[in-house]
């Protein structure tokens, strides 16, 4: 087995200091970890399990149950397509198709160069603007497949 890559422990220490060391803190801690490391690295999860005194299998069961968590590194730009009902009937499937074509990704995957991760979300609650594409934090309402290249560019601009 490959030795586990080691991540900078500093952000984790800061996170753990903010919460009581018990099981009810687990999800909140994992959320902050995900935010700090952009995913849930295994070595970090190990430390979380030890500190909160939650068995490691239970940490993994929580980490794989909730959609907010990913066990693999995420791209620099996260492209989310809202697939809520309103978005679905106003053309979200076309948007997903278009992104799959442009990025050669299925939802949940990341490009090889780690530039983009494609995700679908079950409604972001901006249904009046359906369909929606969210590139990093930028919402594009009444989105059109033909304008997808422009949406993706706004995300790349953010990174640069």
């Amino acid at each position, binding site marked *: 087995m490959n030795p586990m890559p080691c991540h900078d422990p500093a952000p984790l220490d800061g996170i753990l200091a903010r919460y009581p060391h018990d099981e009810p803190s687990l999800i909140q801690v994992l959320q902050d970890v995900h935010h700090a490391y952009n995913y849930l690295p295994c070595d970090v999860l190990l430390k979380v399990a030890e500190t909160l005194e939650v068995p490691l299998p239970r940490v993994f069961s929580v980490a794989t149950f909730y959609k907010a968590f990913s066990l693999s590194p995420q791209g620099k730009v996260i492209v989310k397509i809202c697939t809520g*009902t309103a978005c679905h009937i106003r053309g979200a499937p076309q948007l997903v198709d278009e992104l799959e074509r442009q990025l050669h990704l299925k939802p949940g995957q990341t490009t090889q160069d780690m530039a983009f991760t494609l995700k679908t979300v079950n409604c972001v609650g901006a249904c*009046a603007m359906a369909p929606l594409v969210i590139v990093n934090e930028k919402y594009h*309402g009444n989105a059109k497949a033909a304008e997808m290249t422009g949406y993706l560019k706004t995300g790349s601009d953010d990174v640069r």
Partner: protein
Amino acid sequence: MSAETRVESKAAFEAWRDRLRTERGGRKAEVLVCCGTGCLANGARDVAEAIDGAMRARGLDASVGFFEKHTGCHGFCERGPLVLLRPSGVLYTRVKPRDAKAIVEETVEKGQIVQKLLYRNPETKKPVEKYDEIPFYANQTRVAMRRIGQIDPTDLGDAVAAGAYAGMVRALLEMKPEAVIAEVEASGLRGRGGAGFATARKWKSCRQAKGERKFILCNGDEGDPGAFKDRSIMEGDPHSVVEGMVIGAYAVGAHEGYVYVRDEYPLAVVNLTLALEQARKAGLLGKNILGTGFDFDIRISRGGGAFVCGESSALMRSLEGKVGEPRAKYVHATDRGLFDLPTVLNNVETWSDVGAILEHGGAWFAGMGTAKSKGTKAFSLVGKVKNTGLIELPMGTTMRHIVYGIGGGIKDDRPFKAVQTGGPSGGCVPASMLDVPVDYEKLTEAGSMMGSGGMIVMDDRTCMVDVARYFLKFLVEESCGKCTPCREGLKQMLAMYEDLCAGRGREGDLARIERLAAAMQLGSLCDLGRSAPNPVLSTLKHFRDEYVAHIRDKDCPAGICRDLVIYDIVAERCEGCRVCIKACPTGAITGELKQAHVLDQSKCISCGSCFDVCPTDAVVWSKKTANAGGKEAA
């Protein structure tokens, strides 16, 4: 602005509120920019900055009585970004940053109207100046959303001046806990999260439950796709949630509370966190609330992004830091809920209603609505309707009034097909039932349910088989996997629907689907599984002919199922406007301006984007014949 000192009596509260009101009454003008999610997606942030810049350029600031505020969602998202002026009540719609100068120099300074920014009544073609004269707003009665859009959600003073915490002051300082429960009972308030359980009954059981440690929870895990009223309440008026929860805690004798907020709602977390801090500082939350000796505090817990966590027992497991798997419900949460202790869980909208009920009285609330469904209800009106947005109406309003009176009818004046309510646990209300009054009972009778208030309007371009497949796919992803009928039933059901939509449906499929649906309803552990077949059964009941077309004729009457239809352009009707060329994602359409365009079938993916944009009805679809690439006359 918050209270300088803690509020510890009714007189002090009223004096504080009077001071806030007098101060606000003396303002020359307030410019309210809607910064709800819909308007932000439309560029409201830039509009707000432009207005701020224009006001500063003219020396209009707080020192001379001019204020610019960012508010929560006004509801009329279709027309965003929205700018409301007070005290005049003038509403500007679809405002662009470049309009800021005119708004400030004409309207704010001189009181003159900028005509081109007014909403135009599509029927009379006349511009409407005032916010409350626009039919979309004029037809609403707002209780849970009473302050959203009117106040800056980050300003406690704004909320209090507009009536926040008045109900709580009355409850804590003038009433016994039993009297508070009696008032809620008199209001007839039922859970706004969907199931419609009587709120007072829940509170009473929890009050009577043994044990010192009890919990008050707020369900802000608004998972139903197509619903966003809870998001707007938490973002636009977080103090209404805090107030309701304190009242509930006082009534049942709880000292700890949690708000469980969906992971996808970051702004709600920010605004709620701020509201809690402000309320604590003012003595409205935390230790010794209002000087009564009563302690209650609230913590925020962010969800992990799982639909099933909207289910009460799953939500409590998630709060405990565990996987959100539901429990069998033979034990009530009011006896053994969070950490196995007595717990009351109510929806965001329910909590917001509670404050208003304690302020105005249960009888006032019960004076609205129908025999068994009292008060008002918030809905998000979305889909293929002209005026999409957030609305609140008395229970019992007809679907027709909602879709045509407030919604302004179907987008592009296409034929109405159905309204989907209740999310993945609900169903579709067809055209024949448009005059049914909307309340808990009537929606259930129609084969749907209230749910969390999403109303998704569908037109003839919506395939009902595809809609059912959509919900199944949603539920396959969201089923927690604990019980077999839900986990495996959904998977098999989805496989059958994939076949139906791909033209591989067989005779007998409908009977098989109905049999499986019955098994899931009977055998599933929680309401997610038990109600999962609802979208299937309601579309089967009301739109059976569409299913038959998919199975027998291998045809999709709405032209949505891509494996069943091909699109083409009728040259005689095409005026060569190039609109479809721009809309086509695969570059399948070619042609010069003012010349008939041509669709290349080898590149076409049958997505229908061209059909939806063609102004001259030159794009047509037809059934795909067995020999691939062959065309049938349109």
